[in-house]
């Protein structure tokens, strides 16, 4: 029976019922967003791939403890956010590699693509200068599109605290990026 159109709650029920392979759908559904979040948090594609892959394995092993399967997405973000914090504890900001730098220019690249790559590198560098808490708050709110309620579930922080972090993140990014204009 195909599971591709199934809701998160249905997929979780299938996996917990013994259909291990159904977890592949969870991975396919959420890996892009989780990889992007982890990549922006850690400033490294490799570290992000490791963090998210390990998070998925952990999620699979502890799937029974996901109390609201309908909010699986939030639960997954929480696992990845925690793993990113753990990674950053071991490797503080100064050691984060910036392998998001634009690749060496290829004559085949259009001007638009080059400009986009440079913008991304610029913004990523500014993002890395934020504290992990502010970075996380900005990414969850503005890039991953979580509501403040969902962010509270991901981080365990109160909504007023999260709002303040997002506000300060916006201001800090503006300050850093204005220095480049």
């Amino acid at each position, binding site marked *: 029976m195909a599971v591709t159109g199934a809701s998160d709650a249905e997929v979780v029920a299938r996996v917990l019922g013994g259909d*291990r*392979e159904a*977890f*592949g759908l969870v*991975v*396919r559904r959420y*890996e*892009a967003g989780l*990889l*992007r979040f982890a*990549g*922006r948090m850690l400033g490294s*594609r490799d570290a*992000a*791939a*490791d963090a*998210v*892959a*390990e998070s*998925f*394995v*952990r999620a*699979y*092993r502890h799937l029974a403890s996901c109390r609201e399967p309908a909010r699986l997405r939030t639960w997954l973000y929480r696992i990845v*956010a*925690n*793993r990113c*914090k*753990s990674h950053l*504890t*071991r*490797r*503080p900001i100064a*050691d984060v590699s910036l392998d998001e730098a634009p690749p060496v220019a290829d004559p085949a690249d259009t001007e638009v693509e080059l400009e*986009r790559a440079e*913008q*991304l590198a610029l*913004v*990523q560098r500014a*993002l890395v200068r934020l504290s992990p808490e502010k970075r996380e708050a*900005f*990414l969850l709110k*503005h*890039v991953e599109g979580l509501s*403040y309620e969902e962010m509270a579930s991901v981080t365990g922080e109160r909504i007023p605290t999260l*709002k303040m972090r*997002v*506000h300060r993140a*916006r*201001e800090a*990014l*503006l*300050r850093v*990026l*204005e220095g480049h204009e």
Partner: protein
Amino acid sequence: MNAIDPRVHQALDGELSPEALSPELRRVVEWVVTTAAVLAAPLPLASLEPRVMALIRRPVPSRARRLLRWLATPRSITFRVRPVWSLALAAVVALLTLFPIGREGPDIGEHEGIAQFVGRFPEAQSVHVVGSFNDWRPGSIALEDVDQDGVWRATVVLPAGAYEYMFVVDGERWVPDHLAERLVADEFGRENSIVIVRPARR
């Protein structure tokens, strides 16, 4: 400090319509939206599904992979330790027995042993070790840097057993023991180190 107008924050939080803002403030809103759009580009990475499903089908401790990477990567956070040296030192720290105790030192009970905690924190003013052997009370076991060489040490008598712990530097910075080979998730998004205290009398 470049504070952004509160109305911009309200608009970005969905509490105010951007149409209600002046053109200047609306530009700030657009700037945040544009910045987020730049960051929303997906990472150019292959799907993780094959890797994740392979791991699920044949579980391998993820801790092992991270530790292997830790061993293979030069560290430059608070000190530089070659993996070869770290293994030897970790073996000393984590696996201790005692000479028969003479008159020196404390009276070690039959089911007690010694744990040696060592960490290099050259800039620190104070270092404590906090863990399940002291009810996670910060401040109860202080390390000392007797030689002023940045290497802090403490030797502690503890009941034999396995414990989780971290160092607390300058009363506020929680750091795992980089020399300890054993790590475990603390369920708070970080990792604790593990020390196994062996009974002294064997």
